[in-house]
């Protein structure tokens, strides 16, 4: 076991981790970040997405010690104004069904719109291609992103 320190949703935190501990388990079991979901355990579905130094990564294929000294943001740690806006638009566009994939999508949508004010449909598809959704057929999610962009992107 080794001590690590990192920033979690804006707060400095520390933990004791073993070499093979996965980030997703550290976040869920030690820091009770249950908004981070595990869907496949092999980096394919994107449900466990977190922002690592601002970029979306799948926490099931990161080892906990790899985030030492870095910053992790889960959906709970997004700026309130941005999350409020995403919530309103995704809700109105019916971009949520079972919801298990949703917190992961929210982080990639935030990251995309922070980087790009007016992404094309193809850019949206490409940037969300690390996330699987089995319910919506993606269409409502894409529409939500397009509307968020049209309404001025992320605050």
């Amino acid at each position, binding site marked *: 076991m080794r001590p690590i320190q990192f920033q979690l949703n804006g707060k400095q935190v520390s933990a004791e981790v073993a070499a093979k501990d996965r980030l997703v388990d550290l976040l*869920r079991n030690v820091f*009770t970040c*249950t*908004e*981070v*979901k*595990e*869907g*496949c*355990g*092999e*980096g*394919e*579905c994107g*449900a466990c997405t977190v922002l690592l130094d601002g970029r979306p990564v799948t926490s099931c294929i990161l080892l906990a010690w790899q985030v030492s000294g870095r910053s992790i943001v*889960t*959906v*709970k740690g997004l700026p309130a104004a941005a*999350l409020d806006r*995403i*919530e309103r638009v*995704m*809700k*109105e566009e*019916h971009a*949520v*069904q*079972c*919801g*298990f*994939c*949703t*917190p992961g999508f*929210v982080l990639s949508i935030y990251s995309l719109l922070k980087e790009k004010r007016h992404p094309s449909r193809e850019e*949206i*598809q*490409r940037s*969300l*291609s690390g*996330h*699987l*959704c*089995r*319910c*919506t*057929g*993606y*269409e*409502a999610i*894409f529409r939500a992103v397009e509307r968020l962009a049209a309404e001025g992107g992320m605050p």
Partner: protein
Amino acid sequence: MSPMEPRVVGARVPRVDSCDKIRGSAKYIDDFNYRGTLHVAVVTSTQPHADILYINPAPALDVAGVVRVIVAKDIPGQNQVGCVFPDQPLLQHERVRFVGDRVALVVATSAAIAREAAAKVVVEYRALPSVHDVSEALSDSAPRIQAGGNLIAHLKVRHGSGLGIHSESEVIAEQEFEVNYQEHAYLEPQGMMAVPSGRLVTVSGSMQAPAYVQSAVARVLGYNLAQVRVVQATTGGAFGGKEEYPSEVASCVALAAVLTGAPCKLVYTRQEDMQVTPKRHRMRLHYKIGATKDGIIKSVHATIQVDAGAYAGLSTVVAERANSSATGPYKVPNVHIDTLVVYTNNLLGGAFRGFGTPQTTFAMESTMDILAWKLAMDPVELRRKNLLQLGDTLITGAPLPPSAPSMEVLETLLTRSDYYRLKADAEKHNETSRWTKRGVGLALNMYGCCLHAGGQHMEGSGALVQVRSDGSVEVTIGGTELGQGANTMAAQIAAHTLGAPFGNIRTLQSDTGLVPDSGPTVASRTTIMSGNAVLDAARQIQQRLVQFLAGIWRVPGETIELDGGMYRSGNRSIPFSELVREAGRNRVHLTASGWYAPPEKPWDKETGQGVAYVTYCFAGHVADVEVDAMSGLARVRKVWAVHDVGKAINPAMLEGQAHGGIVQGMGWALFENLQLDHGRVLNPGLADYLIPGAMDIPEMDVSWIEDPYPDGPYGAKGIGEPSLITVPAAVAIAVGHACSRTPTRLPLVPEMLLRWLHE
């Protein structure tokens, strides 16, 4: 009295659960952590068919953190979790019949320790010959998987003339088809938790059918039903995959909880889930359609072989629907269908969106196209000539009940897709294009809404509506919210019927402590069944409010109208919340339990004749595809869907179902390809079993016909399964058009298309 504007029913109101899901605060079963929770891991068979010589748990018990190893003899009640037939022990102690059969449970202080220890339980097997093909399993020399032989059931349709059914037919189209499994790939794997408390256990988790879970757990523990409370947790997708299997997970955790006295949890990894849970059935289908020279269908003869896997599970029920639905939405006077449900040493087939009918629809619609080709007739014209209409006789001998806008569905589909121009464009493209080939396919279906006559004993459904003194309302249905929007539908019907503001409604997860056994959330039945139960409960409360108001206003009850959330009589009016406060102060009872059960459906199992379903949902899809002749990859460019829904309670949720069904159906048709080697899944994970991603989806055009179903809540029928059923057939026919072939297998993997295009 009828509710007026603003209409909550029929509006695109936001889902009641979206905010919690977006913020990640909705709790799925793995998000609950009670102090002292123990974790369960399952020791599963590595063999497809073998005798168990001994089980040695000692090496597992030596692992620090292991609390207990549970084997068959520890079960206090019956060692039995068979869903329909008692053929499936919870824990095996003599013989295993598929890779993934349960042998023992390990209970430990963490999930990781439990899994590590489960791998150390020694199970010594003596291998037996196994059988993995449904036709081989039916041969005399095949190993017997269960004592009664490998044929579980032989279902029939005998309609019209008996032998020589093709005697009136001048042209015959005949073809054999084979379809592979489909994995549900709900994003949240199976999971359950049980909390013991005295002689009571509370089970919660991801599920479609709380009543199934309740009865399985009671049976395994030797409890009565009232000793088992089942509360559904937020459920991360199901698609049929959480109808029967959750009973098994629940029985494991409940058993562990009762034996250890601690809360116990089991959540599968994706790999575990994909190896052991039931799939869409693999089937082999032989179809023969006969018609007159001018295209009037006279006869259908079909044999459908259903690979049930090692235990019957729900296979006979799936087969029952496939059997009664085998000829699609067409008038057929002479029908002879044999549906054989067969044990093999494969994993189980089970419930999956469409319940046996995506397979039969693929076979029927493809054979219809072969028939059209033989008749030199436009395939659409052939369908139009034979399409069932209101009052026509079904192959079960009953008349087609209302609502049935079959022709309107077909005509809308043709108009919206501009089908003939689309098809001509594809053909023109193919004349000059060497490296891409385009094709267009159309398929139709009608889906029997709600449970088949064979399952009608489970059809009744309940709801609980509780109006609180401040005007807020709690609604609980016996159906389950899986992501499809059942709770939002229930909230809309409650709000609309009570005149309550939609924002006042809160829905609770299904709970056997609050609502009676309402059957499973399957068969596209929840809007009709739970919706009608909510309607019943809300009307009772509405009537009590009106009666109370008539008394204090001193007016006849009939003069009171509900208009946009206001109860009115003459020039007097009072909003819902104020009326509720007033009624509450006067001790008016504002909680009601609702119930809905459709009338008895007569049914003869021997001939497959009678009233199979209360009503039908017609649907059609047109698919426009392009096949890359370099890679063999087929890409779906656009899909048009037309659905007969009775009434769209929430058009946005209806579109969501339609989109999801298109994409899931397309995945199965083209690239979802579960591979088994002697019953072992070779690709148990989302890296190797591909489901459609954000880059794969087609453009989608969804429309619907509202022809109210007289017995539906506000005229509504179902949408969950019709959204998928015709899609694989339409995609396959389109790919066949592009490649000038008739696809007879699903999925249409690139290797096969490449071969076709370069032969």
